[in-house]
């Protein structure tokens, strides 16, 4: 029986010729990542276990991004704990505020994670990195503490889902719409515990940004990971990262066998898919934007880890150029990383947003998790390019979040209601 991408990567790490779904294996991790919130708990656990040495400081990554720049005294205390840990153990991949950004944008971009590797992360959207043909999966803080102590993690070999996208995309339809459409089809528990593997010629004509968006939201269908095939685009991306240029590390790539067994298979003809919107309070409550009635909005968030890459911001800027955000709407732009922010400034992209009346924020999770920099009041409505719209996600319990791509979010900001760029 042939193997899926996830099965091959796990077998490779477990030192086995093959693995089968359901099998539990212990594998060495190539990277164990945490943000300041998950790290705080992992550090507390390591201390209570009496472990004062990590397995390998070069394979640990810490990104304070959720409540940073520190939003209050509690956040400051956590950030201090994490920084002290990074200093004490000489953690190689510590991204202080101002030198990183949001974990899932930063790691692939810096070359911290490479194709064929296994990464565990104390954050559910760790699956984002799977766009680079690696197995990246979210775990809890105890798992991270275990990985930091032993260099290993226990994994149940997942079953896999094969999702194939073919056809020609309509204008203003991007990776975000494909994954929202898929969530509408599969439902939020639709791929629970599966490795979601994405295929199809659609990706030949899209930048890697869209793969990151789709791998990012694999967890929204319950996926253990989301993985793309390796191709020339992946190669170009990986080999342009600062780490690769400096060290030229070797990496392996994995393609599925022709007779690999997939528990779920879907073929999507994208030709008829229009921009999608996920309505409150679930990412699978999806409708085409044209079917959304007149819904007034108070806030728009463009960016974050799902859609904060350069191409995402460019698509929004294209819509906002020479236009104005509706008078009573707050539009907040959040680049995924400092590197992206820098390019946005250099190329004048950030000025397009500022001229349109947006806030060009620093890179932070901030509003996405209802932390800071854009928390919603009671009954407020937000169009966001992030990945979750659960009740209370971005603030007050009665606030509502609609998820969309960056072009739809930008158009909505201008109109003061949810709408498509075609209406402008």
């Amino acid at each position, binding site marked *: 029986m042939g193997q899926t991408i996830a099965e091959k990567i796990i077998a490779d790490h477990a030192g086995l010729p093959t693995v089968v779904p359901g099998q*539990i294996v212990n594998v060495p991790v190539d990277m164990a990542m945490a943000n300041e*919130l998950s790290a*705080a708990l992992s550090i507390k656990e390591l201390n209570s276990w009496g*472990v004062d040495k990590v397995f390998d400081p070069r394979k640990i990554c810490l990104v304070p991004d959720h409540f940073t720049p520190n939003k209050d005294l509690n956040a400051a205390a956590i950030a201090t704990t994490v920084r002290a840990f990074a200093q004490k153990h000489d953690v190689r991949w510590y991204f202080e505020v101002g030198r990183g950004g949001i974990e899932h944008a930063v790691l692939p971009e810096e070359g911290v994670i490479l194709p064929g590797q296994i990464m565990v992360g104390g954050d559910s959207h760790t699956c984002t990195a799977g766009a680079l043909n690696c197995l990246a999966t979210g775990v809890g803080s*105890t798992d991270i*503490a*275990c990985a930091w*102590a032993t260099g290993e993690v226990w994994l149940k070999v997942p079953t896999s889902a094969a999702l194939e996208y073919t056809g020609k995309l309509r204008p203003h339809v991007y990776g975000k719409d494909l994954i929202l459409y898929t969530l509408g089809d599969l439902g939020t528990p639709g791929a629970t515990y599966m490795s979601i593997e994405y295929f199809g010629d659609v990706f030949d004509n899209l930048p890697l940004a869209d793969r990151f968006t789709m791998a990012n939201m694999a967890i929204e269908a319950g996926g253990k990971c989301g993985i793309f095939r390796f191709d020339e685009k992946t190669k170009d991306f990986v080999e342009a990262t600062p780490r690769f240029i400096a060290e030229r590390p070797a990496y392996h790539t994995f393609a599925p066998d022709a007779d690999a067994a997939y528990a779920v298979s879907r073929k999507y003809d994208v030709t008829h898919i229009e921009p999608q919107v996920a309505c409150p309070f*679930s990412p699978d409550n999806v409708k085409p934007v044209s079917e959304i009635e007149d819904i007034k909005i108070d806030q728009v968030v463009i960016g974050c880890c799902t859609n904060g890459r350069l191409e995402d911001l460019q698509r929004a800027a294209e819509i906002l150029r020479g236009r104005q955000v509706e008078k009573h709407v707050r539009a907040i732009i959040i680049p995924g990383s400092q590197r992206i922010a820098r390019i946005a400034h250099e190329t004048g992209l950030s000025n397009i947003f500022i001229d349109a009346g947006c806030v060009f924020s620093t890179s932070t999770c901030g509003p996405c998790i209802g932390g800071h920099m854009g928390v919603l009041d009671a009954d407020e409505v937000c169009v966001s390019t992030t990945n*979750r719209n659960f009740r209370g996600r971005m603030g007050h319990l009665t606030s509502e979040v609609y998820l969309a791509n960056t072009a739809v979010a930008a158009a909505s900001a201008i109109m003061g209601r949810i709408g498509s760029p075609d209406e402008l």
Partner: protein
Amino acid sequence: MILKGRVYRVGDNINTDVIMPGRWCHLTDEAELAKHCMEDHDRDFLQKIKPGDIIVADENFGCGSSREVAPLSIKAAGIGAIVARTYARIFYRNCINIGLPIFESPACAAATGPDDGLSIDVFGGKIINHTRGGEFAFAPFPEFMKTIMDKGGLQGWVMERLGR
């Protein structure tokens, strides 16, 4: 081992954002976490439950964020076990790792209502509903998970790996 308790019943897709909202995710102290458990699902959760109570849920319990503070708060609030039709995977492994007893039984979930009295025979593999009658099997744990559970969570396993 027999776990006995009264049921706190919830439905499908209870996500970790409502179990432990983002605004409390900076907390690491268990007693503090317990104070906010399930706050955005049910403001009166803590008044309604007693130590040892059992959460019974339908599909996809614990979906969303990987935040381990969610299962930790449930454990710290005194909940003795969770029974659900299905779980989200990160939540499931977090529970195993922190030693919060967790069982998968679609049949039990289907036949259990609020305030029912349950007892769970952890090693015997069955759940009894004392209020409505009925005995339900739950999915057996893989050997590896049993090992972790026997050690009271992942900590014991790590200690062994490190030769302590």
